[in-house]
């Protein structure tokens, strides 16, 4: 492998925040399921109408929760610690992303990007991915998916989480109002968590089918093999 076949695709701070985020999201999801299992039902509005839940299940299985056994107090400890880490990591990423121009340059889709949405969808469905020089940039579906996670799902799940705090609700009534009540906020927090899980599932699938080692290497070392010489 000659060096000029490789491009430096991910900078160090992107790689560090990416893997920190992976750990945070794993712990937050599993401890979140532990917390949910303490009362495995969802409602809409301010209060719980126990005879009219939106969703009621027995419980998530032990292998999906952290800790594995029913242990609400410990699940909360994991959740709140890693929530701080998740927010700090996300804030560092957002700050560096804006300051370095990473967002503007690599993530905000251009008009020509947007015109290619249909084509990109067709390519993805056939599992055909940009090769060579085109693989140096994110494609439009990647950009939109990443922006959706960064600008919509992540802020929403944090706000909905904060809206469940009775102390913060007292200080900021709008926080719970924008979600339509505390139980609605809890439901939206849950829906966001599973939307993020769905994103991760698709993300992993794409990593697998578009050159798994090349992708993983580029997120660990930064270097991505474009498969052809570049000047």
């Amino acid at each position, binding site marked *: *492998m000659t060096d000029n076949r490789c491009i430096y695709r991910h900078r160090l701070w992107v790689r560090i925040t990416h893997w920190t985020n992976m750990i945070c999201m794993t712990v937050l999801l599993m401890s979140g399921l532990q917390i949910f299992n303490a009362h495995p039902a969802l409602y809409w509005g301010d209060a719980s109408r126990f005879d009219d839940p939106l969703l009621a299940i027995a419980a998530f299985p032990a292998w999906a929760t952290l800790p*594995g056994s029913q*242990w609400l107090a410990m699940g909360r400890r994991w959740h709140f610690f890693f*929530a701080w880490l998740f927010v700090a990591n996300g804030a560092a990423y957002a700050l560096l992303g804006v300051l370095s121009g990473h967002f503007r340059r690599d993530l905000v889709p251009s008009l020509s990007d947007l015109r290619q949405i249909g084509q990109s969808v067709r390519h993805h469905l056939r599992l055909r991915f940009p090769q060579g020089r085109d693989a140096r940039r994110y494609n439009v579906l990647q950009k939109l998916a990443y922006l959706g996670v960064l600008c919509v799902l992540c802020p929403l799940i944090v706000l909905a989480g904060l809206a469940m705090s009775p102390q913060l609700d007292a200080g900021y009534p709008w926080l719970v109002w924008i979600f339509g009540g505390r139980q609605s906020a809890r439901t939206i927090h849950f829906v966001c968590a599973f939307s993020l899980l769905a994103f991760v599932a698709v993300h992993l699938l794409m990593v697998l089918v578009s050159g798994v080692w090349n992708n*993983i290497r580029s997120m660990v070392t930064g270097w991505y093999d474009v498969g052809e010489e570049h000047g």
Partner: protein
Amino acid sequence: MADLNQLGRRRFLGRAAGGLGGVLLGSCGRLSENLEFTELLKSADAVTRFAQRIVAGPAALAREYTDADLSSEFRVNGTTEPSDPDYQRLAQNEFADWRLEVGGLVELRRSFSLVELKELPSRTQITRHDCVEGWSCIGKWKGARLGALLELVRPHPEARYVLFYCADAMNLAGDKYYESIDLDGAYHPQTILAYEMNDRALPVAHGAPLRLRDERQLGYKMAKYIMRIELAADFGHIGDGNGGYWEDQGYEWWAGI
């Protein structure tokens, strides 16, 4: 050479990823039993509390609702009927013989009957009760303002916490429920010793004759079946020293989240 290099790197990456995943998932369970690690997790509590104080302030009022919002079914949490024979006797007599003892770091130790408590400045509020399990119910509470009661007994300057001793046994050994809040919480206008719920005498299931309402914290802070109140400089001497029954089971003393 290049291929070998690549192979070696792939093998390394594979092992690193597999190893990391294994360590993560395998050790998370054990980590929950590790005191030093759980203390590290616990350190987030102080950050949360500090941040909430700064952004939400100690004086903010919890939202109050209207009669139309009252929950038709208000779930009972914790004990539903204390088995303690002394409590049972008091309940049979509709708590006419019950007295709330107030002591500790106060200038004036005294006790209050239910009638005397009802003569203290009162407050009625319709608020949302959030259980640590995740559910919420809306109820109407009337009670004596804890701040007004404290002004009568005059806490010493070194008093920092209000401790509640309750009648409900939590285990076979007969250990009874206990809780604590700080003075900021105690003097908050919405912090009341409730003797009425939804315009009726407080039902036994909800803590008769007297329960705490501290509307900016979770349900487990709001001690039911209160028998005695103590003003103290700290709460190290009750239970295992974490400030409350559920706190001793690992829950946060600061339950604003």
